[in-house]
Protein backbone atom coordinates (compact mmCIF):
# COMPACT_ATOMS: atom_id res chain seq x y z
CA UNK A 1 0.00 0.00 0.00
CA UNK A 2 1.19 3.50 -0.74
CA UNK A 3 1.58 5.95 2.14
CA UNK A 4 -1.61 7.66 3.28
CA UNK A 5 -5.19 6.90 2.40
CA UNK A 6 -5.81 4.92 -0.76
CA UNK A 7 -8.49 7.36 -1.88
CA UNK A 8 -6.05 10.21 -2.17
CA UNK A 9 -4.02 8.10 -4.58
CA UNK A 10 -6.96 7.75 -6.94
CA UNK A 11 -7.10 11.49 -7.04
CA UNK A 12 -3.35 12.00 -7.24
CA UNK A 13 -3.34 9.77 -10.32
CA UNK A 14 -6.39 11.53 -11.77
CA UNK A 15 -4.70 14.90 -11.22
CA UNK A 16 -1.45 13.68 -12.75
CA UNK A 17 -3.43 12.45 -15.74
CA UNK A 18 -5.19 15.78 -16.21
CA UNK A 19 -1.95 17.77 -15.92
CA UNK A 20 -0.19 15.25 -18.15
CA UNK A 21 -2.78 15.76 -20.89
CA UNK A 22 -2.33 19.51 -20.64
CA UNK A 23 1.48 19.21 -20.77
CA UNK A 24 1.34 17.07 -23.87
CA UNK A 25 -1.27 19.34 -25.43
CA UNK A 26 1.04 22.29 -24.74
CA UNK A 27 3.95 20.55 -26.44
CA UNK A 28 1.95 19.67 -29.55
CA UNK A 29 0.33 23.10 -29.76
CA UNK A 30 3.84 24.54 -29.59
CA UNK A 31 5.04 22.27 -32.37
CA UNK A 32 2.43 23.88 -34.61
CA UNK A 33 3.46 27.38 -33.67
CA UNK A 34 7.11 27.41 -32.61
CA UNK A 35 7.85 31.06 -33.35
CA UNK A 36 4.86 32.37 -31.42
CA UNK A 37 5.67 30.21 -28.40
CA UNK A 38 9.36 31.11 -28.40
CA UNK A 39 8.60 34.79 -28.77
CA UNK A 40 5.95 34.88 -26.04
CA UNK A 41 8.06 32.77 -23.70
CA UNK A 42 10.73 35.49 -23.68
CA UNK A 43 8.39 37.71 -21.70
CA UNK A 44 8.05 35.30 -18.81
CA UNK A 45 9.92 35.94 -15.62
CA UNK A 46 12.24 32.93 -15.33
CA UNK A 47 13.60 34.10 -11.99
CA UNK A 48 10.20 34.09 -10.34
CA UNK A 49 9.49 30.64 -11.78
CA UNK A 50 12.83 29.32 -10.49
CA UNK A 51 12.40 30.85 -7.04
CA UNK A 52 8.97 29.29 -6.84
CA UNK A 53 10.46 25.91 -7.71
CA UNK A 54 12.93 26.29 -4.86
CA UNK A 55 10.11 27.36 -2.55
CA UNK A 56 7.91 24.38 -3.38
CA UNK A 57 10.76 21.88 -3.15
CA UNK A 58 11.66 23.29 0.23
CA UNK A 59 8.08 23.10 1.44
CA UNK A 60 7.97 19.49 0.26
CA UNK A 61 11.08 18.84 2.30
CA UNK A 62 9.40 20.37 5.35
CA UNK A 63 6.47 18.03 4.85
CA UNK A 64 8.88 15.10 4.73
CA UNK A 65 10.28 16.27 8.06
CA UNK A 66 6.74 16.51 9.42
CA UNK A 67 6.05 12.88 8.48
CA UNK A 68 9.38 11.84 10.01
CA UNK A 69 8.46 13.71 13.19
CA UNK A 70 5.04 12.10 13.62
CA UNK A 71 6.55 8.66 13.06
CA UNK A 72 8.64 9.36 16.13
CA UNK A 73 5.45 10.41 17.87
CA UNK A 74 6.51 14.09 18.00
CA UNK A 75 3.13 15.70 17.27
CA UNK A 76 4.17 19.26 18.17
CA UNK A 77 7.24 19.11 15.98
CA UNK A 78 5.14 17.63 13.18
CA UNK A 79 2.67 20.51 13.40
CA UNK A 80 5.52 23.02 13.30
CA UNK A 81 7.04 21.49 10.16
CA UNK A 82 3.64 21.52 8.48
CA UNK A 83 3.17 25.16 9.48
CA UNK A 84 6.52 25.92 7.85
CA UNK A 85 5.40 24.08 4.69
CA UNK A 86 2.17 26.06 4.62
CA UNK A 87 4.23 29.21 5.05
CA UNK A 88 6.31 28.29 2.01
CA UNK A 89 3.08 27.64 0.12
CA UNK A 90 2.05 31.17 1.04
CA UNK A 91 5.34 32.52 -0.32
CA UNK A 92 4.68 30.64 -3.55
CA UNK A 93 1.25 32.22 -3.83
CA UNK A 94 2.58 35.72 -3.19
CA UNK A 95 5.29 35.40 -5.85
CA UNK A 96 2.76 33.96 -8.26
CA UNK A 97 0.27 36.76 -7.62
CA UNK A 98 2.99 39.34 -8.33
CA UNK A 99 3.78 37.52 -11.57
CA UNK A 100 0.09 37.32 -12.55
CA UNK A 101 -0.37 40.97 -11.69
CA UNK A 102 2.45 41.94 -14.03
CA UNK A 103 0.94 39.85 -16.83
CA UNK A 104 -2.62 41.07 -16.32
CA UNK A 105 -1.61 44.71 -16.15
CA UNK A 106 0.26 44.20 -19.43
CA UNK A 107 -3.17 43.33 -20.83
CA UNK A 108 -2.44 39.62 -21.20
CA UNK A 109 -5.40 37.28 -20.94
CA UNK A 110 -6.36 33.73 -21.90
CA UNK A 111 -7.28 34.99 -25.34
CA UNK A 112 -4.03 36.85 -26.08
CA UNK A 113 -2.57 33.87 -27.93
CA UNK A 114 -2.24 30.11 -27.64
CA UNK A 115 0.96 30.32 -25.59
CA UNK A 116 -0.54 32.62 -23.00
CA UNK A 117 -3.69 30.50 -22.96
CA UNK A 118 -1.58 27.54 -21.90
CA UNK A 119 0.68 29.54 -19.61
CA UNK A 120 -2.26 31.06 -17.73
CA UNK A 121 -4.39 27.90 -17.71
CA UNK A 122 -1.59 25.68 -16.45
CA UNK A 123 -0.30 28.09 -13.83
CA UNK A 124 -3.75 29.11 -12.56
CA UNK A 125 -4.90 25.49 -12.45
CA UNK A 126 -1.75 24.67 -10.50
CA UNK A 127 -2.20 27.78 -8.34
CA UNK A 128 -5.62 26.49 -7.28
CA UNK A 129 -4.07 23.15 -6.43
CA UNK A 130 -1.55 24.88 -4.20
CA UNK A 131 -4.43 26.55 -2.36
CA UNK A 132 -6.25 23.22 -2.04
CA UNK A 133 -3.04 21.56 -0.83
CA UNK A 134 -2.59 24.28 1.79
CA UNK A 135 -6.15 23.75 2.99
CA UNK A 136 -5.51 20.02 3.34
CA UNK A 137 -2.20 20.65 5.14
CA UNK A 138 -3.88 23.15 7.46
CA UNK A 139 -6.50 20.57 8.41
CA UNK A 140 -3.75 18.03 9.07
CA UNK A 141 -1.79 20.57 11.11
CA UNK A 142 -4.77 21.41 13.32
CA UNK A 143 -5.45 17.76 13.95
CA UNK A 144 -1.78 17.10 14.70
CA UNK A 145 -1.69 20.01 17.11
CA UNK A 146 -4.70 18.72 19.01
CA UNK A 147 -3.05 15.33 19.34
CA UNK A 148 -5.03 13.56 16.65
CA UNK A 149 -2.04 11.62 15.32
CA UNK A 150 0.50 9.36 16.90
CA UNK A 151 3.50 7.23 16.01
CA UNK A 152 1.17 4.35 15.15
CA UNK A 153 -1.72 6.27 13.64
CA UNK A 154 -0.64 8.93 11.20
CA UNK A 155 -2.22 8.00 7.86
CA UNK A 156 -3.78 11.48 7.75
CA UNK A 157 -0.37 13.16 7.79
CA UNK A 158 0.87 10.91 5.02
CA UNK A 159 -2.27 11.57 3.00
CA UNK A 160 -1.80 15.33 3.14
CA UNK A 161 1.91 14.93 2.48
CA UNK A 162 1.33 12.80 -0.62
CA UNK A 163 -1.05 15.36 -2.08
CA UNK A 164 1.41 18.16 -1.41
CA UNK A 165 4.25 16.26 -3.09
CA UNK A 166 2.02 15.78 -6.13
CA UNK A 167 1.50 19.55 -6.34
CA UNK A 168 5.27 19.95 -6.13
CA UNK A 169 5.91 17.32 -8.80
CA UNK A 170 3.61 19.00 -11.26
CA UNK A 171 5.40 22.30 -10.82
CA UNK A 172 8.80 20.64 -11.27
CA UNK A 173 7.72 19.71 -14.80
CA UNK A 174 5.69 22.84 -15.45
CA UNK A 175 8.56 25.21 -14.74
CA UNK A 176 11.08 23.93 -17.31
CA UNK A 177 8.35 23.10 -19.83
CA UNK A 178 6.72 26.51 -19.92
CA UNK A 179 9.45 28.88 -18.74
CA UNK A 180 12.75 27.40 -19.96
CA UNK A 181 12.57 24.96 -22.86
CA UNK A 182 12.45 26.54 -26.28
Amino acid at each position, binding site marked *: *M*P*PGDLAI*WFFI*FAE*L*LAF*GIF*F*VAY*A*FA*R*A*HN*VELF*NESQQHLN*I*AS*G*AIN*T*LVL*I*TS*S*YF*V*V*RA*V*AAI*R*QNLARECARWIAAAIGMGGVFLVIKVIEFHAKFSAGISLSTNTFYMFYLSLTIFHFMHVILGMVILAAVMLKARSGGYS*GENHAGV*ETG*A*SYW*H*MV*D*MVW*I*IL*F*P*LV*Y*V*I*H
Partner: protein
Amino acid sequence: MDTVHRPHFIRSSTIVWLALMFLTLITYAIGEAKLGGWGVMLMVLGTAVIKVQMVSDHFMGLRRTRWLWRGIVLGWLLLVAGLVTIAYLSAVK
Protein backbone atom coordinates in the same frame (compact mmCIF):
# COMPACT_ATOMS: atom_id res chain seq x y z
CA MET B 1 7.33 1.13 6.56
CA ASP B 2 8.41 2.00 10.07
CA THR B 3 11.46 -0.18 9.78
CA VAL B 4 13.41 2.71 8.28
CA HIS B 5 16.14 4.00 10.49
CA ARG B 6 15.01 7.50 11.37
CA PRO B 7 18.12 9.69 11.46
CA HIS B 8 19.28 8.09 8.27
CA PHE B 9 15.88 8.73 6.71
CA ILE B 10 16.08 12.41 7.61
CA ARG B 11 19.65 12.73 6.43
CA SER B 12 18.93 11.14 3.06
CA SER B 13 15.91 13.40 2.63
CA THR B 14 18.07 16.40 3.32
CA ILE B 15 20.55 15.28 0.70
CA VAL B 16 17.71 14.79 -1.80
CA TRP B 17 16.39 18.23 -0.98
CA LEU B 18 19.80 19.84 -1.59
CA ALA B 19 20.18 17.92 -4.85
CA LEU B 20 16.78 19.13 -6.01
CA MET B 21 17.70 22.72 -5.20
CA PHE B 22 20.97 22.36 -7.09
CA LEU B 23 19.27 20.89 -10.17
CA THR B 24 16.74 23.70 -10.12
CA LEU B 25 19.51 26.26 -10.16
CA ILE B 26 21.07 24.57 -13.20
CA THR B 27 17.76 24.71 -15.03
CA TYR B 28 17.42 28.35 -14.03
CA ALA B 29 20.91 29.15 -15.32
CA ILE B 30 20.12 27.51 -18.65
CA GLY B 31 16.93 29.52 -18.84
CA GLU B 32 18.60 32.84 -18.09
CA ALA B 33 21.35 32.09 -20.60
CA LYS B 34 18.56 31.59 -23.17
CA LEU B 35 20.10 28.37 -24.37
CA GLY B 36 17.99 26.49 -26.89
CA GLY B 37 18.10 23.56 -29.27
CA TRP B 38 17.17 19.95 -28.90
CA GLY B 39 20.26 18.97 -26.89
CA VAL B 40 19.52 21.56 -24.24
CA MET B 41 15.84 20.64 -24.35
CA LEU B 42 16.61 16.98 -23.68
CA MET B 43 18.91 17.94 -20.83
CA VAL B 44 16.39 20.23 -19.14
CA LEU B 45 13.55 17.76 -19.57
CA GLY B 46 15.78 14.94 -18.35
CA THR B 47 16.61 16.97 -15.27
CA ALA B 48 12.91 17.45 -14.60
CA VAL B 49 12.30 13.70 -14.98
CA ILE B 50 15.06 12.92 -12.49
CA LYS B 51 13.69 15.50 -10.06
CA VAL B 52 10.16 14.12 -10.22
CA GLN B 53 11.50 10.62 -9.71
CA MET B 54 13.43 11.82 -6.65
CA VAL B 55 10.33 13.40 -5.16
CA SER B 56 8.23 10.33 -5.87
CA ASP B 57 10.82 7.87 -4.54
CA HIS B 58 12.19 9.71 -1.54
CA PHE B 59 9.65 12.33 -0.50
CA MET B 60 6.48 10.43 -1.27
CA GLY B 61 8.17 7.26 -0.12
CA LEU B 62 7.02 5.17 -3.07
CA ARG B 63 10.46 3.52 -3.09
CA ARG B 64 9.29 1.42 -0.16
CA THR B 65 5.93 0.30 -1.58
CA ARG B 66 4.71 -2.19 -4.14
CA TRP B 67 6.13 -1.69 -7.61
CA LEU B 68 2.61 -0.96 -8.90
CA TRP B 69 2.37 2.47 -7.31
CA ARG B 70 5.87 3.42 -8.25
CA GLY B 71 5.23 2.08 -11.72
CA ILE B 72 2.14 4.19 -12.27
CA VAL B 73 3.97 7.41 -11.41
CA LEU B 74 7.05 6.41 -13.40
CA GLY B 75 4.91 5.32 -16.33
CA TRP B 76 3.03 8.59 -16.30
CA LEU B 77 6.31 10.51 -16.11
CA LEU B 78 7.97 8.66 -18.99
CA LEU B 79 4.84 8.86 -21.13
CA VAL B 80 4.47 12.59 -20.66
CA ALA B 81 8.19 13.25 -21.12
CA GLY B 82 8.27 10.99 -24.15
CA LEU B 83 5.32 12.66 -25.85
CA VAL B 84 6.68 16.11 -25.05
CA THR B 85 10.01 15.08 -26.58
CA ILE B 86 8.31 13.78 -29.72
CA ALA B 87 6.37 17.02 -30.03
CA TYR B 88 9.54 19.11 -29.68
CA LEU B 89 11.60 17.04 -32.06
CA SER B 90 8.78 17.11 -34.62
CA ALA B 91 9.11 20.90 -34.66
CA VAL B 92 12.88 20.93 -35.15
CA LYS B 93 13.65 21.53 -38.79
